[in-house]
């Protein structure tokens, strides 16, 4: 187990170094950073002085090393667009995205898993067929179209829910949360529904497929032959075997949620990191793009490593110390 953990961490470090390399190349080769530091009529000597001060005369791998060192403490310099520190910008925006993604992830699990089980246990019922059809449509609807439809129905026509912003937020330390006010919670509903919908259909289909697979196995047949109750067979024997692979996929999908939050944040003018990233992309604001890339990659890597570890904990076949005691 310990060795496995170490191996995973080393792998993660390499992925992060590769991502940092991409971010570094963006800095190094997109526009000349010196231009943004000196007056337009600066002499060559002045420019060289800045170049030297920034370390741009050093060999490239030393520059990369410095970049990684600064990135490790969260220093990505100033935004080219509004000259504020990138780390501050991201820190301001992070809570909005985190709350949105977490609520959407929770919703998609809380609804997707039961629906998947239901449709697996009653494969021929009408409700299953309706759900299957809906999930097909859900998978084909572009997320932004879903968002627009939600706004059209619930904000424009019915006027029930706000269509933009986070409502009133409360600061808890540096974290601004929308969980504590009614308007904050109301503002969260449409964006999180839009964000979770695609994920929900994926999880439902995945749970259904896995569950049906498991229900066909010999150990379920043997459990039936021992007269165990349906409840135990479905929810103790089958569900645990079903959910182990689902956890892995969900981990990967959580990354997808963070990426799709970009679209949700644009549709609902949600003041999160994704909206910031889109602005950076359209302005070619390299420091913000690079920092977002590194931060999101870090989150991905942490999620994936956690999922692998969780998998090892949940599946007895993968518990290394257990395997050693075998036979």
């Amino acid at each position, binding site marked *: 187990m310990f060795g496995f953990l170490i191996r995973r961490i080393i792998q993660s470090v390499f992925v992060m170094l590769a991502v940092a390399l991409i971010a570094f190349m963006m800095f190094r080769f*997109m526009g000349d950073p010196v231009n943004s530091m000196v007056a337009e009529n600066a002499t060559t000597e002045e420019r060289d002085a800045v170049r030297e001060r920034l370390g741009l005369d050093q060999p490239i791998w030393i520059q990369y090393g410095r970049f990684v060192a600064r990135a490790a403490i969260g220093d990505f310099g100033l935004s080219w667009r509004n000259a504020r520190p990138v780390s501050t910008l991201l820190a301001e925006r992070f809570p909005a995205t985190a709350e949105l993604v977490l609520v959407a992830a929770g919703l998609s699990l809380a609804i997707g898993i039961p629906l998947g089980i239901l449709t697996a246990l009653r494969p021929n019922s009408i409700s299953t067929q309706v759900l299957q059809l809906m999930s097909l449509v859900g998978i084909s*609807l*572009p997320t*932004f179209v879903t968002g*627009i439809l939600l706004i059209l129905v619930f904000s424009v026509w019915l006027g029930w829910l706000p269509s933009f912003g986070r409502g009133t937020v409360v600061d808890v330390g540096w974290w601004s949360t929308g969980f504590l006010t009614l308007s904050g919670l109301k503002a969260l509903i449409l964006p999180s529904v839009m964000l979770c919908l695609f994920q929900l259909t994926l999880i439902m289909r995945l749970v259904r497929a896995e569950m049906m697979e498991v229900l066909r196995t010999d150990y379920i047949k043997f459990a039936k032959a021992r007269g165990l109750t349906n409840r135990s067979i479905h929810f103790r024997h089958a569900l645990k075997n079903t959910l182990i692979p689902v956890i892995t996929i969900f981990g990967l999908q959580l990354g997808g949620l963070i990426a799709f939050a*970009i679209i949700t944040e644009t549709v609902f003018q949600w003041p999160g990191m994704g909206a910031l990233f889109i602005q950076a*992309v359209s302005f*070619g604001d390299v420091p913000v793009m690079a920092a977002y890339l590194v931060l999101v990659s870090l989150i991905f890597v942490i999620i994936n490593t956690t999922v692998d570890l969780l998998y090892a904990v949940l599946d007895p076949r993968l518990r290394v110390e257990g395997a050693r005691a075998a036979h």
Partner: protein
Amino acid sequence: MTDTTQSRTTASTLARLLDSDIAWNFRHSWTARISSVLILILFAAALFAPMLATQNPYDISQLLLLDSELPPAWVEGGDPRYLLGTDEQARDVYSSILYGLRLSLIVGFASVALAAVVGISLGLLGGFVGGMVDGAIMRVADILLSFPAILVALLVNGIARGVLPPDRHADAAIWVLILAIGLTNWVQYARTVRGSTMVERQKEYVQAARINGVSGMGIMMNHILPNVLGPVLVIATINLGMAVLTEATLSFLGVGMPATQPSLGTLIRIGNEYLFSGIWWVVIFPSVVLVALVLAVNLLGDWLRDALNPKLR
């Protein structure tokens, strides 16, 4: 002599095709038939857009500002000249959709072609050369796959925009999109082709060619490409749906096609800004066309995958 042989093979190939499982499968799958009819209609609409459209939405001189924000023809206050209504600049929604569909499909097809060319080349290279080259290609592919496609496309897009001067953004948008989407989606082609190449490389004729000092690459290509044609076709079809969707998403986010040259995604973005004035038709109709296109392509892709190779699932 060669000619007759050629035509005979073509004829027999055609006969085989019509008699094949695929054709049987097609005749017996209503999703395949409906989706292919829908695709044909949409492709034709895009192809003949200038003839089918009632106005050229890019030509400002054709726009009558008086006719702006008219609802669809069958709604009260609608004008029969504008079947699906007009937007705030008096552009006919129906005509804009035709032109937008055209652009969406151009970007879709071009990026699929780019992805296929890059993927097939890298797959052949990796599978044939092996070793470090193969390892490097596959590592890049792994990392690429671990990121959501939309994020990679956004990033390539952002880098391209950073490199280009701002005044060139609008003109270059279509190329930037093709590049961004194409470079996001090559991995699956590369993996499939690489697998086939590695199998083929072990075969005797390649070994013999190597011993004789002849490059096996040329002969191999002739053997591999027919083998991978089926899977590549499936990947390309599914990819086309994804590419159209990615283009629409990027354009919707405001980093794709500019408002002067709107694709379906741009139309939806523009329409979205007027949603609160109650002008729903500007956003709903392009959305319906986009959903129909993506759904039809996806259904066809799913069917093709099952019909061509049940193992690919």
